[in-house]
């Protein structure tokens, strides 16, 4: 085919892409309909399939252990269901924070760390450049093949200079293309509707092209799958594609490659860009989660058939397997098909290059260049000028630089490796973002220092195990590094680190880099203390759910700036047109006259910040605004951090409050106990006073009378007898008192409770009566008794109860009428549950005011017989206490001169 046809068709195709992009941007309304839907979104995700897919898959499949070509696609298929929450969360966070790249994402999460943004950008850069270079390789070689379809094309393939020319031109064209697509204006959200439309179209085209060649090979050359496969099976070397052979594929490699592709689909800068930054609605992910795997399925169906066909057609390796898709139609003279295939490959390559370079340029400008400029003060000092054009220029320069480096890499290294192996090297680099990203989303304790440590370690290992050895393999560095290890240490062999031999260099590198990356990340995070901004960001990211309201609701008070300052900033960085648009929209919605506006309130300031962030990155925007905004701005993040602190303080003070409440109650309890103790002290003192007084009295008379007796030996007998009697009775009195005090003690201490037994109260009462019968007789007291014939069971202590009965009876004796004493005793069961004992006397009775007192300690009544108090005053008190212990009661009924009736009651015992 003539070169000119190829060139023209290439240009036509590219122009078509330009056109689509241009039209979509020029007619936003119609364009939006085309672009803002889940199908376009899913198709844009297919930018994942590059020239690697187009050429490299077949190439890999046709080589030993080729089944691993599938790993690159199984990863995304497996992780697609998890997109529903992982990717959606990333999108939500990015939208709410105004993040425009993965470097921005990571930098923002870990405290808006500029240096982390730099690291991520650099890792992305060095990781993606090889990937871009293989696109160059693919396009140029396919171009070369097409233009030299004759026998000479074999030699042409090896013609280095031919390569160079083609590749260079292609690089230039692509650079222009990228600059056009990506940098016509600065959109704060970095959305490029036209670009997305173009990418979606390319995805359709490359699928179409691949299916075309696939159908051709399967049904054109052969008679369907069955035919093709059976023929292939006939050749043992070919048929190895059909299964896993232990020697060629091991589970280790298989697993690690899948892991790598899982991280790649999420974290490749171009994937992040189309999946997150360009995303219009997070719910598109729902559809994309199965549409994209479907796309992958379709584009992979014919890989193995084509590989088989190629191997069958060109055994012996005269044609590079990467090129089967072209060589086969060419061989059969299907030029047009070959052209279509070529354009398909071109499509795949350009979509990758454009998106990747745009994504990279955003990172470089926002996370590398602008911070540098700000730190060195260049930007701020420029009082004049519209910086937005400067920003664009920075972007464009970075695009050119990236492409240049990619080209150089291609020349130096690219030729020596297959597409797939270099692609996987890129994957391994990007995989270093996995620990940090997972930490960003789900682990609040991850700190900036941990992220730095992890990333740097991972990147370092990647360099050591992949970047350097690949250079050594092509002769840029000494081969000894590979064979003998770094610095001659065999444990530091790049392909066998620490002695771990691995058949697959990629898996080996992936293992070590991720292991040490994760280890450092976790280890350092756990051992470092995050700054407040990190904590706030961590909360914002991990708990994005809580904060998905409109930002302005949360923005607070102290954010004000001179309106002119804000206006200036926006002009300088977004361009006058965009800035004015933003400001007038705001003014309209808030009904403000911009001309007269002096101060920009918090809302406007935040609006400005988010737009600026889109243009120059969140960290830089914050930095710039800080210089303009008066007082310490309390942004949402800071407010959150204050809230967190406040929350802690509140918790603490609540704990304190609780403690002090407890303290208060304890103090009160102590006070009450103290009062009780004091009371007891008082009671004790009273008791002691009373008892000692009670003792002192008889002792006084004993002493006095004894002395008299001893001093007056010849006292007359009457007096002598009288005195002696008194002495005796007073001594008895003392003894009684002591006994009663002891009884009281026993009763008070409640020791008697434990010796309760079941006894017959009837019998007990009668016994007590019998024991006093003599006394009754002696004093000539008439007794009328009424005892029941049955037993009356109670549970209690016999001695104590006897004491009570005796007490009542002796009181009756003491207080009944002195001349004609009459005492009535009656005992009966009054209700099914109650025993009542009544002891009545016919004495002078007890006045009403004394009826309560007599049950108290030491209260005595005067006996009618002697006119003086009888007893110690404790008897009734003790009796009452004893009855209380037995769950009984005692009371008195009495009227003046009508005697007294004491009523004691006890609960009847039931079995």
């Amino acid at each position, binding site marked *: 085919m003539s070169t000119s046809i190829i060139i023209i068709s290439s240009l036509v195709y590219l122009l078509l892409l330009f056109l689509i992009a241009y039209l979509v941007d020029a007619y936003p309304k119609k364009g939006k309909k085309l672009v803002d839907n889940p199908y376009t979104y899913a198709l844009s995700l297919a930018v994942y399939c590059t020239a690697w897919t187009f050429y490299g898959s077949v190439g890999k499949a046709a080589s030993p252990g080729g089944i691993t070509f599938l790993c690159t696609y*199984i990863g995304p298929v*497996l992780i697609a*269901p998890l997109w529903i*929450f992982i990717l959606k969360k990333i999108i939500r966070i990015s939208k709410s924070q105004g993040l425009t790249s993965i470097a921005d994402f990571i930098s923002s999460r870990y405290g808006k760390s500029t240096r982390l943004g730099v690291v991520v950008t650099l890792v992305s850069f060095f990781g993606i450049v090889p990937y871009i270079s293989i696109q160059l390789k693919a396009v140029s070689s396919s171009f070369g093949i097409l233009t030299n379809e004759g026998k000479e094309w074999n030699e042409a393939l090896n013609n280095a200079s031919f390569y160079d020319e083609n590749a260079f031109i292609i690089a230039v064209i692509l650079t222009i293309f990228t600059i056009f697509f990506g940098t016509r204006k600065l959109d704060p959200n970095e959305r490029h509707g036209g670009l997305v439309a173009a990418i979606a179209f390319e995805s359709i085209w490359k699928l179409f092209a691949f299916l075309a060649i696939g159908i051709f090979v399967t049904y054109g050359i052969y008679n369907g799958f069955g035919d093709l*496969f059976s023929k292939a099976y006939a050749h043992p070397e070919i048929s190895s594609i059909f299964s896993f*052979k232990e020697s060629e594929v091991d*589970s280790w490699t298989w697993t690690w490659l*899948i892991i790598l592709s899982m991280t790649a689909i999420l974290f490749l800068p171009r994937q992040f860009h189309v999946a997150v930054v360009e995303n219009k609605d997070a719910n598109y992910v*729902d559809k994309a*989660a199965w549409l994209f795997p479907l796309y992958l399925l379709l584009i992979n169906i014919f890989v193995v058939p084509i590989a088989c066909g190629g191997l069958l057609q060109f055994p012996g390796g005269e044609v590079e397997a990467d090129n089967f898709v072209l060589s086969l139609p060419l061989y059969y003279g299907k030029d047009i098909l070959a052209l279509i295939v070529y354009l398909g490959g071109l499509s795949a390559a350009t979509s990758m290059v454009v998106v990747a370079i745009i994504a990279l340029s955003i990172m470089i400008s926002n996370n590398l260049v602008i911070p540098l400029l700000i730190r060195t003060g260049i930007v701020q000092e420029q009082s004049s000028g519209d910086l937005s054009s400067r920003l664009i220029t920075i972007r464009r320069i970075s695009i050119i630089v990236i492409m240049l480096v990619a080209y150089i890499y291609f020349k130096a290294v690219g030729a020596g490796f297959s597409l797939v192996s270099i692609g996987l090297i890129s994957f391994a680099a990007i995989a270093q973002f996995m620990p940090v990203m997972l930490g960003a989303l789900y682990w609040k304790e991850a700190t900036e220092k941990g992220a730095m440590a992890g990333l740097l370690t991972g990147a370092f290992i990647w360099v050591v195990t992949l970047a350097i050895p690949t250079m050594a393999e092509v002769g840029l560095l000494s081969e000894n590094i590979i064979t003998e290890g770094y610095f001659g240490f065999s444990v530091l062999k790049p392909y066998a680190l620490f002695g771990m031999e691995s058949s697959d260099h990629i898996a080996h590198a992936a293992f070590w880099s991720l292991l040490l990356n994760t280890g450092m990340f976790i280890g350092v995070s756990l051992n470092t203390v995050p700054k407040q901004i990190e904590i706030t960001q961590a909360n914002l990211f991990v708990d994005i759910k809580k904060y998905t309201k409109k930002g302005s609701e949360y923005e607070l008070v102290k954010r004000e700036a001179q309106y002119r300052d804000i206006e200036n900033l926006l002009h300088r960085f977004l361009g006058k047109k965009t800035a004015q648009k933003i400001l007038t929209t705001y003014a309209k919605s808030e009904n403000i006259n911009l001309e007269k506006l002096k101060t920009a309130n918090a809302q406007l300031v935040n609006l400005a910040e988010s737009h600026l962030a889109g243009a120059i990155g969140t960290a830089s925007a914050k930095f710039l605004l800080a210089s303009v905004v008066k007082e310490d701005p309390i942004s949402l993040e800071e407010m959150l951090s204050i809230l967190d602190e406040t929350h802690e303080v509140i918790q603490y003070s609540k704990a304190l409050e609780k403690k002090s409440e407890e303290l208060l109650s304890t103090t009160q309890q102590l006070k009450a106990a103290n009062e009780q103790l004091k009371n007891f002290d008082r009671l004790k003192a009273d008791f002691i006073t009373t008892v000692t007084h009670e003792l002192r009295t008889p002792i006084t008379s004993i002493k006095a009378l004894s002395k008299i007796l001893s001093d007056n030996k010849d006292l007359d007998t009457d007096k002598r007898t009288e005195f002696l009697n008194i002495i005796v009775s007073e001594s008895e009195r003392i003894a009684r008192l002591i006994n009663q005090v002891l009884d009281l003690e026993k009763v008070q201490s409640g020791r008697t409770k434990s010796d309760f037994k079941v006894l017959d109260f009837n019998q007990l009462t009668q016994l007590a009566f019998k024991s006093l019968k003599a006394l009754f007789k002696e004093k000539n007291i008439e007794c009328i008794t009424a005892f029941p014939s049955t037993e009356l069971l109670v549970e209690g202590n016999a001695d104590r109860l006897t004491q009570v009965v005796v007490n009542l009876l002796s009181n009756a004796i003491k207080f009944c009428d002195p001349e004609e004493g009459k005492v009535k005793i009656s005992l009966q069961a009054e209700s099914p549950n109650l025993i009542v004992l009544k002891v009545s006397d016919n004495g002078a009775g007890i006045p009403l005011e004394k009826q309560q007192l007599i049950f108290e300690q030491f209260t005595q009544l005067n006996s009618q017989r002697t006119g003086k108090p009888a007893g110690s005053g404790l008897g009734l008190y003790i009796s009452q206490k004893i009855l209380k212990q037995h769950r009984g009661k005692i009371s008195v009924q009495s009227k003046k001169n009508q005697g007294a009736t004491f009523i004691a009651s006890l609960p009847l015992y039931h079995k």
Partner: protein
Amino acid sequence: MKEWSTLMSKNKISRLTGLFLLGLVLLNFPLVNLFGKDQFIFGIPALYIYFLFVWIGMIIATARIVRKK
């Protein structure tokens, strides 16, 4: 994790995670190794039929889980 119940039902999350894990198992050793090269179904290597079906299965399963409101 408890915040997510407002994003979507825990049910969905667990089903999707389950699908992921299932796929992980199905598309990895040792299961994948079961299909030796000499097995053919309708003239197509068994391995491919297997991959095809698991793949399609995952697509359909994801689509259905996501559709349920």
